[in-house]
């Protein structure tokens, strides 16, 4: 906790340059966005892993990001170079969120119509749809102009550099509401981590819990993806770091831990990107690099035991 606050302060107040009055408010917005993203990625990943009873999955397996990337590629495919004259970032944001959320709703409701939800079946369908979207995306990217491709590429990497303040406001309110609703489920999720049968035996309404949690996850993932780009790989990393360092099975603690890890990683990463690499790289590359290393370490460690 202390470490996370320290990182925020370091990021806010070092290397101010000559015009602090200009730099500070802009940085504050970025920090707010990053904290928000960290919390929603933390919540959605930990809860998703509990529902699926699996520690190496994140909501990205359901195909949210592929919907996002497909949409981004599609508008560039349609409008080419002129994309950003035709479509405003606000519109783009709203459409992306609606598409991703709509995708989730259609997926859930076709699946939930059957009385017995099978989470794994849901995952499988999401995974397959995700890869279909993926191949459609690569097809479109293949036939567009290389210059136009570079326009898409920008949206393929998460970036905190130009966050729209207005969008941030709307997203913040929605995310906070979803987190508040989500926080009421935490005790039930604790029980669910014992396993589906035990949860039912202990009086948890399993169907409802899974449905509500998946909806909350859908809201959070759509908004954070549309706001900064695909960053959900972060989810695996921070969730597992949290399990490692937080000696508690309670979701209250693990989600908090994951969020703090997220803040640490994103803001620390952004600091490195801005001041060490001089914007020469992007934060998602950094996070993927750190995440990859961490996973190799995890694998090696579990081999030994």
């Amino acid at each position, binding site marked *: 906790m202390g470490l996370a606050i320290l990182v925020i302060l370091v990021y806010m107040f070092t290397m101010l340059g000559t015009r602090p009055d200009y730099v500070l408010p802009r940085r504050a917005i970025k920090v707010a966005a990053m904290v928000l993203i960290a919390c929603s990625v933390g919540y959605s990943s930990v809860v998703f892993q509990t529902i699926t*009873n699996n*520690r190496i999955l994140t909501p990205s397996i359901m195909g949210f990001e592929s919907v996002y990337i497909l949409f981004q590629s599609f508008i560039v495919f349609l409008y080419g170079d002129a994309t950003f004259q035709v479509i405003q970032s606000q519109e783009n944001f709203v459409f992306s969120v609606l598409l991703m959320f709509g995708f989730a709703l259609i997926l859930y409701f076709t699946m939930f119509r059957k*009385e*017995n939800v099978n989470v794994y079946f849901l995952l499988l369908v999401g995974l397959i749809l995700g890869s279909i979207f993926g191949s459609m995306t690569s097809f479109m990217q293949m036939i567009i102009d290389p210059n136009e491709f570079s326009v898409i590429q920008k949206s393929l990497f998460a970036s905190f550099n130009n966050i729209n303040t207005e969008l941030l406001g709307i997203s913040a309110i929605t995310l906070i509401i979803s987190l508040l609703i989500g926080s009421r489920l*935490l*005790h*039930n999720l*604790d*029980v669910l*981590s*014992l*396993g589906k*049968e*035990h949860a*039912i*035996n*202990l*009086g*948890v*309404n*399993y169907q409802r819990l899974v449905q509500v949690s998946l909806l909350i996850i859908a809201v959070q993932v759509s908004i954070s993806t549309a706001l900064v780009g695909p960053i959900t790989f972060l989810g695996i990393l921070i969730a597992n770091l949290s399990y490692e360092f937080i*000696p508690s*099975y309670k979701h209250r603690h693990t989600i908090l831990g994951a969020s703090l890890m997220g803040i640490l990683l994103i803001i620390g990463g952004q600091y490195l990107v801005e001041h060490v690499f001089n914007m020469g790289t992007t934060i998602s590359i950094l996070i993927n690099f750190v995440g990859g290393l961490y996973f190799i370490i995890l694998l090696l460690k579990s081999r030994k035991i």
Partner: protein
Amino acid sequence: MITVKKVNKRYGEFRVLDDLSISFPKGKVTSLIGGNGTGKSTLLGVVSKLLNKDSGNVFVVDQDISDISSKEFATRLSFLKQSNHTHIRLKVRELVCFGRFPYNRGKRMCSEDCCIVDRALNFMELEDIADKYIDELSGGQRQRAYLAMVLAQDTEYVLLDEPLNNLDMKYSVQIMRTLQKLAKEFGKTVIIIVHDINIAAYYSDYIAALKDGAIKYFGKTEEIIKPEILKEIFGLDFEVIQRNGKPVCLYYN
């Protein structure tokens, strides 16, 4: 009293439960016996609302179980499945505390809750390992920890799917005695699946024998433990001898 009326359940084409009806007597230990794949676990799953039935009804007293909310149901009936494991780091005591979840919904444990948890730990002789992690325990110790959780749930009806799984003889006997005590002293209705016919014969008040998804025989223990019935159920030759007024079955040959 739990009454099962004409319940059907199929997996694909295979009928696991075929128009099954039975009434489990209140305040008694009833054992379900039968070969593998005869629908014993499915029956318990349906009664405990873990599995959906295709048709038929299950009543607790006079109330259809589908009309009871999951919250209330958990305070009246508990179920433990055959094999239990978890991937979260959990201490024995924390696991047993989950048994109180139906009452406190995850809020702070009241002193009564703590008292019941301590009693359950004591009952299963788990005090020494109460602060150990579940994944560090042997199979039998883990089984006792889960049983303690079910005890802490303190429900009128207790359904156990092979509770003696992984247990050595001492603990098997101890658990059967515990279940007998629950029925006799606290009036709880206990329904268990047992594979050891002699354990079933010695400790249960009633025995229900399943074959092909239906109750083939149901009655007091001494009415069921007979060579001809057991032969029909298991397809083995049995010799039943009486020792101290209890039947003992010999079937090794």
